[in-house]
């Protein structure tokens, strides 16, 4: 067993600062009774001006002058931890939620991720890309990992510990207050001159039990791995949703991309942990007074890469005009589908080519809309206007129709254009000379859109070669139907 503790200090503050690059204005998170809210965390700018945790918000305002105060939102914190646990599922199936972060048991998956060091560096990098600051502790027991993580947060020199035998030695120099014991218990220890965990461990066991109760002793035993310390594993939900509040108004779609990228990275981790991808992703934009607008992004094949989803979202947002300023952004993946991981191929093959094609089509559709892109399907009908159909650009096989021997023009006019005539001879930018024909088409009497036409190839004085027809009845007008381009 090897545990990694991910300690997210001052989570409310991190959540507030996550949606936007760090602001230089003082910011505090307020909690407690609404009559007298207290500062529960303050950012660096606020601390510089003397704001400390635990002081009244009114006092903080007086100290800092200009001060942003945000109300603490415990449900948002829980949701954020949940989403982070979903994301962490890509590293190990054994993730446990803690009050201030996550515990990951990575003993079984260490080899998959190329060893502890590469896993840790990946965790640190990707967490900072998500916008979180973490303190990491590594130990054979979860409690010890947390002690190390807290010690690292306080700037104490700690090393990670992989072996159970080394644990008492590594924990010994840590200060006692990291254990989060009640103040009066700690005070008792301090009066005894005991400040470090090591001193605590060397106390006689029966005396310790009598004086401080079995609860404290069990906690120490669990930290040292003497007693088991089972955790309840987090179960990832079927769908994923994540949300960010900005705390200010965004009026430009470009500014949404930065927070969106963080959300998409979370989604990618979640999808990786499930071995899944999404085909449809919904963006939720929050406006004033609880109004929301939604945008949906679809892909032809299941997708999970945050980079590619972001590229699609960028095009989709590019052709959207914001109806109102945006205060929050959310993503919502209701349905996840199975995703086949594509191997990096050494020699390009048909499969990698097909993937490139669908990614191109997705990108174009995201900007232009799906109706602007199409392929054509030929239909076995002699009437030109009935002989084609549009189909989606992702169709990769179109059955061929029997070949026609008659000359056919490359361009077809959407509707035949009536031509004027002089003494029965057709005119189109000058008198038309007939080159070939007639090609008689007599079809459609069965479906009420009958056509009895004689088609000719004709050329006008400008050298344009045209496809014209007239119905075979007396005095019938001439029509232009195609162009031999």
């Amino acid at each position, binding site marked *: 067993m090897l545990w990694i503790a991910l300690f997210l200090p001052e989570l409310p503050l991190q959540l507030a600062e996550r949606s936007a690059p760090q602001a230089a204005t003082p910011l505090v998170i307020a909690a407690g009774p609404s009559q007298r809210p207290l500062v529960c965390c303050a950012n660096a700018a606020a601390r510089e001006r003397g704001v400390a945790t635990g002081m009244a918000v009114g006092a903080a305002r007086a100290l800092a002058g200009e001060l942003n105060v945000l109300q603490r939102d415990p449900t948002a914190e829980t949701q954020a931890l949940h989403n982070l646990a979903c994301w962490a599922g890509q590293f190990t199936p054994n993730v446990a939620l803690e009050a201030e972060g996550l515990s990951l048991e990575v003993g079984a998956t260490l080899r998959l991720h190329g060893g502890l060091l590469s896993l840790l560096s990946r965790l640190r990098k990707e967490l900072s890309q998500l916008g979180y600051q973490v303190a990491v502790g590594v130990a054979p027991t979860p409690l010890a990992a947390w002690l190390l993580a807290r010690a690292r947060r306080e700037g104490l020199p700690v090393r990670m510990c992989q072996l159970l035998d080394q644990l008492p030695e590594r924990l010994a120099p840590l200060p006692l207050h990291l254990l989060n014991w009640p103040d009066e218990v700690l005070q008792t220890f301090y009066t005894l001159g005991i400040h470090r965990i090591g001193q605590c461990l060397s106390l006689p066991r029966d005396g310790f039990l009598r004086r401080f109760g079995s609860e404290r002793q069990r906690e120490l035993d669990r930290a040292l791995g003497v007693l088991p310390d089972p955790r309840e594993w987090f179960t990832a939900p079927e769908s994923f949703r994540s949300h960010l509040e900005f705390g200010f108004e965004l009026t430009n779609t470009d500014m949404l991309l930065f927070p969106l990228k963080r959300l998409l990275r979370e989604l990618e981790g979640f999808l990786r942990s499930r071995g899944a991808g999404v085909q449809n992703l919904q963006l939720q934009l929050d406006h004033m007074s609880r109004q929301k607008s939604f945008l949906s992004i679809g892909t032809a094949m299941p997708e999970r890469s945050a980079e590619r989803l972001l590229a699609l979202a960028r095009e989709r947002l590019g052709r959207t005009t914001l109806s109102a300023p945006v205060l929050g952004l959310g993503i919502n993946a209701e349905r996840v589908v199975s995703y086949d991981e594509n191997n990096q191929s*050494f*020699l*390009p093959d048909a499969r990698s*080519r097909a993937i*490139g*094609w669908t990614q*191109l089509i997705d*990108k*174009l559709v995201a*900007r*232009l809309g799906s109706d*602007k*892109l*199409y*392929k*054509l*399907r*030929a239909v076995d009908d002699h009437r*030109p206007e009935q*002989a*084609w*159909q549009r189909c989606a*650009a992702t169709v*990769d*096989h*179109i059955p061929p*129709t029997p*070949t*026609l021997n008659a*000359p*056919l*023009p*490359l*361009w*077809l006019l*959407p509707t035949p254009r009536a031509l004027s005539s002089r003494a*029965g001879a057709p005119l189109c930018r000058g008198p038309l*000379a*007939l*080159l*070939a024909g*007639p090609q008689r088409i007599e079809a459609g009497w069965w479906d009420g859109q009958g056509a009895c036409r*004689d088609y*000719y*190839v004709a*050329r006008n004085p*400008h*050298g*344009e*070669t*045209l496809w014209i027809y*007239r119905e*075979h*009845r*007396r*005095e*019938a007008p001439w029509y232009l139907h*195609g*162009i031999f*381009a």
Partner: protein
Amino acid sequence: MADAQALQEVLRNPAVWRARELAQEQEQRTDRTLGTGFSSLDLALPDGGWPVGALIELLADTSGVGELSLLLPTLRQVCAQGRAAALLAPPWLPYARAWESLGLPLDKLLMVESSSSDLLWSAEQILRSGECGAVVLWGQAAGRALDHRALQRLHLAASTGNALCFVYRATAVEASPSPAPLRVKLRAQEGRLHLDFLKFRGALRNKSLLLDTYPAHWQPQPRLASQLETLSTPTYRPLRRSRSV
């Protein structure tokens, strides 16, 4: 040190293939030209075909002079290589059966309807992706957005994706500068397609060329005009009888 030199010696041997280069070459075959399918045109063009990975401007004012038939053998060849071809902002509807009977697989033809900057963006994306071997763009739909800068971008994208990029424009822009290494003016001349090479890279045999893009028997036939009256009678009569009239 001596070993490294010996290794360099071996690697310099043209018979030694490096796997990395092999993969790259497979991915984007760096053939510099693609045959046009017209032997006289192949002979006339500097490198024996259309320059691949470059912008090619075709200036024509009228449609129906064989300006698209000129590209058909090229598009056929591109499709036969397994790459797709894209038609961007076609002025009319491509008649599916005609394209099919001329040997172009319809599942390899992508049509994009768009205009101005969106159109140019799409062209650039398609070219860059390298998925399409040829992109044919009708510049009229792009309007004023198709300026020198946009052409430069297209040229760059074509070379990135190693694709052919044909752009049809009006002859009015003949005098304006263009980054395209090949500019051809097209017009009809007595049922044949007349090509004027306005700009080219390298040595050219002729400044102009005549191509047959239509079947040779398509000549004005007064006989047909005289038949019109009899053909349009309300009752259907076999052609044989009408000829004897």
